[in-house]
């Protein structure tokens, strides 16, 4: 029988089949699902993020590792719910209105899931009101926005204004990213944080929910 610790390597190396096999075996052996997540899976994705930051890993490795993580997580999620485990935080994510780019947004969503966040992905071309509705439904969540065009990044300000108008801004942290976005722009529109890569986005989300 594979050892639960093998889950760590399976995720770091992006071996989805192995991750599935180890998780199934561990659950059958009544290993605590919270322990699997906290001891092996989240640290594995943290390691993937570190390797990405030091240019040892690139986007293909991130995607492959995230797939392995998701495979294991799909098996684990019902058990975690039964055990009453809490997510690291909740994130409502989407690409802003008028913008169809989704590669970066999807990558950030995968990495956040890998870090134990519950992620609600609104997709691309998301109107401000849809962000507001999702933030209302997922009260206390982070709103994460992506924009890849200089003509659409201005929508981020509209979302912030719509959150303010709906009385949700104080309860909602807002993080942004995408090729034309800078820290200066983040400060200018009053968002709570900016990251230029998926690994940094996880660290930022953790800071925003106060777990790092």
């Amino acid at each position, binding site marked *: 029988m594979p050892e639960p610790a093998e889950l760590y390597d399976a995720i770091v190396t992006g071996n989805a089949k192995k991750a599935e096999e180890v998780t199934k075996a561990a659950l059958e052996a009544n290993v605590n699902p919270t322990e699997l997540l906290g001891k092996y899976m989240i640290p594995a994705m943290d390691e993937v993020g570190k390797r990405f930051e030091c240019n040892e890993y*690139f*986007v293909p490795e991130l*995607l*492959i590792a995230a797939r392995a993580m998701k495979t294991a997580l799909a098996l684990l999620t019902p058990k975690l719910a039964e055990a009453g485990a809490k997510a690291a935080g909740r994130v409502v994510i989407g690409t802003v209105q008028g913008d169809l780019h989704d590669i970066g947004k999807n990558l950030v969503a995968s990495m956040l899931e890998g870090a134990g966040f519950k992620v609600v992905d609104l997709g691309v071309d998301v109107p401000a009101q849809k962000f507001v509705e999702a933030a209302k439904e997922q009260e206390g969540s982070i709103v994460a926005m992506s924009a890849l065009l*200089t003509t659409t*990044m201005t929508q981020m300000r509209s979302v912030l204004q719509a959150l303010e108008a709906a009385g949700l801004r104080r309860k909602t942290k807002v993080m942004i990213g995408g090729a034309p976005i800078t820290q200066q722009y983040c400060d200018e529109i009053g968002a709570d944080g900016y990251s230029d890569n998926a690994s940094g986005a996880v660290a930022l989300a953790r800071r925003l929910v106060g777990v790092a």
Partner: protein
Amino acid sequence: MAIAGLTLIGETINDSVPSTRKLFEAGDLAGIVELARFQDEKGAAYIDVNVGARPPEFMADVVRRIQEVTAKPLSIDTPDPAIAKAGLAAYDPARAGGRKPLLNSISPLRVGMFDLLSVQPFRPILLISERVEDGRSRPCQTAEQTYQAATFLLAEAQRAGLEPDDCILDPGIAPIGSDTEGNLKRLIGAMEMLHNDPKFARVHRSVGLSNFTVQLPSKRADGSPVKGPLENAFLTKAMPLGLDMIIGSVKRVYETLPPEHPAMQCLEDCLRLGGFEAILRVREFYR
């Protein structure tokens, strides 16, 4: 340098290039002009100009300054009609031997930008990776949808008085390192459909080639380059299907590859495999 029959649009003057953005932010127009001169000397046929979200007057100023040092025509690169208008109005065809600028780009949702032909005649890059559904832009997910977008935009361009020769179709190229949704397959499929339809025979095709290899390492495990060969593999595949223009780097050596080249085999495998298997195949290429 480019392959014979392949027109290179120099990509460097773009706000999304970090070193160029720094020049813009520092107001270093001399530096921007130098980028134009360098790309001209290194063989770019057009110089792309993308100033990001800066004011229209800034685009106009940059266009004028660049045209002081190059006789190459420019590619006015913005989805914003006001910035495009300012760039086109400032452009002086006489300084480019009478040649028209490119307008990069017009999408199915932005056909109103054809009105800018009254400001300055231009050759449009028509973005056919998007389509309109219920009044909103949607990504084309199939070759058929891409072909339909091309049919629509070519008809709109001709209605605006443009000849097929003036039009350049951009079917949209996505990074191969994150293509889990079969974009490469859509793209090559669409290029085949366009190639087989006589109404597109005189229409040009272009892609932003550097986008194909972003997010990949620069070197393979054996120290040989990753990006150049994969981009060349794409050219080798796409040029027989009508690709005759790229937005790319003057520093890159563009060349066609033999079928047995590892990058060529990687590209063919990715086309055949799709999904995560394709991502694994790309990783195998550089690991």
